[in-house]
């Protein structure tokens, strides 16, 4: 039976391929409203391609990399990865109604997830309704995480493992922007499904917010019936840069089931500050983010799971050559450096009063080459030290990473 089904499908695919005319593919004009884009615009501020008169435009990005890393003199050797391949589909249903989805295939398809699938309705620039699978606007990186935008192969640890990225949930919310001369002000506020017990009960042996991503049911129902609030305000000055302040919080644990009380209600609160700016004299681009995580961990549970975490990163990107390079008219060659820090467990031991360590820091010098703005080739050297909870001599990790990332 399969053979009979396969034949017509195969023939149809051949015909369909033959019908694709590249002249029908057209770039969607850049939305001029994003010339003064803020971080919150990141989901729409991407290149899209439209096929003929189809009402939808598509896009995406792909990342592939090579790495040679080792820890304390031991290396796993050479490794090639395709960490993510992401597809976007956008559609303007009406000039004030649009839809965008982002589907990501991670680690060669091992994980397939809907990162964003939301409908936006604009009533006023200051009042937009968004509903669906939204990316919680905590910090900046969660919303602005596309690989081609960054000069580094790896994502910042604090913004992907301390804060979960990409962290998206089903929910609704409002957002808006207001412009005045060189200033822009934006806000976002959402209620979504949230976290669960796994953030303090996981195989990472530490408070680990991304553990909640493993629960695919969060797209169907809340783990505890309590909405997670995420809100952000941001201010941008065209000459100075943008600063954002965001908060995410709510009850994370399943405290009740079938009317029976299982545990006390326990809160999770996250505060983040992000900024980005370009020093006009040198064209040096700076972007950074810092976050604090507060989790109500039962006193009688293990201190292995911290009540407080903090961490962040700073990227410094210095273009050193712009212009015609290797046949590309507007190529940019840059030097960059990332500094990272995460403290997974802020506090001191009840038994000794000594500091709880469980932290890491990393320095990542980098070279990047952008033949066009949407494509980046990057070469990084990562050096990292991480200490266990007791503060024993750190594990030293280092190595080279090389990667390509491009929108398509």
């Amino acid at each position, binding site marked *: 039976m399969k053979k009979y089904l396969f034949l017509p499908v195969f023939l149809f695919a051949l015909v369909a391929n033959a019908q694709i005319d590249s002249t029908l593919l057209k770039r969607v004009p850049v939305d001029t409203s994003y010339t003064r884009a803020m971080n919150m615009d990141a989901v729409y501020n991407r290149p899209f391609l439209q096929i003929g008169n189809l009402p939808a435009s598509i896009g995406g990005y792909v990342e592939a990399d090579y790495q040679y890393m080792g820890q*304390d003199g031991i*290396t796993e050797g050479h490794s090639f990865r395709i960490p993510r391949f992401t597809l976007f589909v956008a559609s303007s249903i009406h000039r004030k109604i649009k839809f965008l989805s982002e589907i990501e295939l991670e680690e060669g398809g091992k994980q397939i997830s809907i990162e964003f699938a939301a409908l936006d309705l604009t009533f006023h620039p200051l009042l937009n309704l968004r509903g669906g699978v939204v990316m919680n606007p905590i910090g900046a990186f969660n919303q602005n995480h596309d690989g081609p935008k960054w000069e580094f192969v790896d994502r910042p640890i604090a913004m992907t493992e301390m804060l979960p990225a990409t962290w998206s949930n089903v929910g609704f919310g409002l957002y808006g922007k207001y412009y005045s001369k060189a200033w822009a002000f934006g806000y976002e506020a959402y209620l979504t499904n949230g976290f669960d017990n796994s953030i303090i*009960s996981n*195989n990472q042996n530490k408070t680990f917010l991304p553990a909640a991503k493993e629960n695919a049911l969060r797209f169907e129902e809340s783990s505890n019936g309590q909405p997670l609030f995420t809100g952000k305000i941001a201010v941008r000055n065209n000459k100075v840069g943008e600063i954002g302040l965001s908060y995410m919080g709510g009850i994370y644990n399943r405290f009740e089931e079938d009317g029976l009380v299982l545990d006390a209600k326990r809160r999770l609160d996250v505060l983040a500050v992000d900024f980005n700016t370009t020093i006009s004299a040198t064209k040096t681009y700076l972007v950074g983010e810092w976050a604090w995580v507060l989790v109500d961990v039962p006193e009688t549970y293990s201190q292995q799971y911290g009540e407080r975490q903090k961490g962040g990163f700073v990227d410094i990107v210095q273009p050193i050559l712009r212009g015609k390079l290797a046949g590309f008219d507007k190529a940019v060659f840059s030097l960059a450096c990332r500094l990272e820090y995460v403290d997974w467990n802020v506090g001191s031991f009840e038994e*000794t009063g000594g500091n709880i360590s469980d932290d890491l820091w990393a320095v990542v010098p980098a070279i990047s080459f952008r033949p066009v703005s949407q494509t980046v080739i990057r070469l990084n050297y990562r050096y990292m030290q991480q200490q266990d909870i007791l503060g024993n001599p750190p594990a030293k990790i280092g190595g080279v990473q090389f990667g390509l990332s491009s929108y398509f």
Partner: protein
Amino acid sequence: MKKLILILLGCLAFACENIIPEPPAVDEILDGPIDGLNSSEQARFLAGDFAFNDEVFSSGTGLGPTFVATSCGSCHAGDGKGHPFTTLTRFGQTAPNTPPNLLIGGPQLQNRAIPGYTPEILPEGTPFMKLTPPAVTGLGLLSALTDEQILTNADPYDLDGDGISGVPNYVNPPAYFVPKWFHQDANGRYMGRFGKKAATIDLLQQTVSAYNQDMGITSTFEPVDPFSGLEVDQEVSDQTVRDVVFYLRTLKAPIQRSQNDQQIIQGKTLFSQIQCGDCHTPEWTTPTSDIVALSNKTFFPYTDLLLHDMGPGLDDGVTEGSAETFEWRTPPLWGLGLSPNSQGGSYFLMHDGRASSIEEAILLHGGEANSSRTKFESLSAEDRTALIRFLESL
């Protein structure tokens, strides 16, 4: 521009030589297998290494509901001595050869609980002892010794008049215990050699008991959940338990550092002169073992694996097996100088971590060690330093 790119490529080429951070010196770390394992043994070592150091239990994988630690590695960071954070509390047996009082929650306190549960609380007024997790390196060599070898040093009635007795701890074996050719049956009891009171006969018992009592993980060997007291499904496989036992058996012994340093040589001589070595027996040789790499190996653990009266200062009023409450097994001294590398930069010595330096630990010795301690106190500052440096080099 071309020059800049060339410089960058040159820097990169130079960096390639040193891409991976340098490994620590082999004698500065405790983990790693003994020499001479074949490839299948190496694979089994790795499986045990993973289970011991990387496998973390959570409520979803059987942790607790009451427990002390979430993984083996939580207590034995880098296979070394543990930190007060994961100190065990034992209670319930206050005299030798009496069964632990399980009705009050003994033999071990599970002082932590998963969310929604209440941890165990020590009954008011109950004597207890705190036990800092020991290092786990070199255990295979100690486990390969015969009972007969260990009993050679026993002198329960101090017949040689040196003030040092040395007695074995005879304990009731668990149901799953299968005696090896080198174990001696003592009216149904067997000699323990592991644990601060030498109450554990072999590494299978040590492993199964730690899974059960420390993490609340049941196995076919120990199917009773310490929280409910009921038999439940196994939460760790027999294979994993066996792999961990193999890992513990094949961890290398700590390597002494700076052996040719004159001050350390002088310290070693003093160690012998003030009779520390009468209990901390320096040298042993294994007989033939089922693991070739453990066979006929001479090694230097500085223990006699026997119990000694350590005086009233170290009497916690609690015991295990046939040990008196004031008796403690001579702890191996190998790896002593590396303790801060697994204890968060500090020393937590003696059975409960009360000593914050080697010198303080020596001065806490009483009972049969009174004589050696007095001799240590009378050493010159220079000699004391030499002795401490020797101990640090182990």
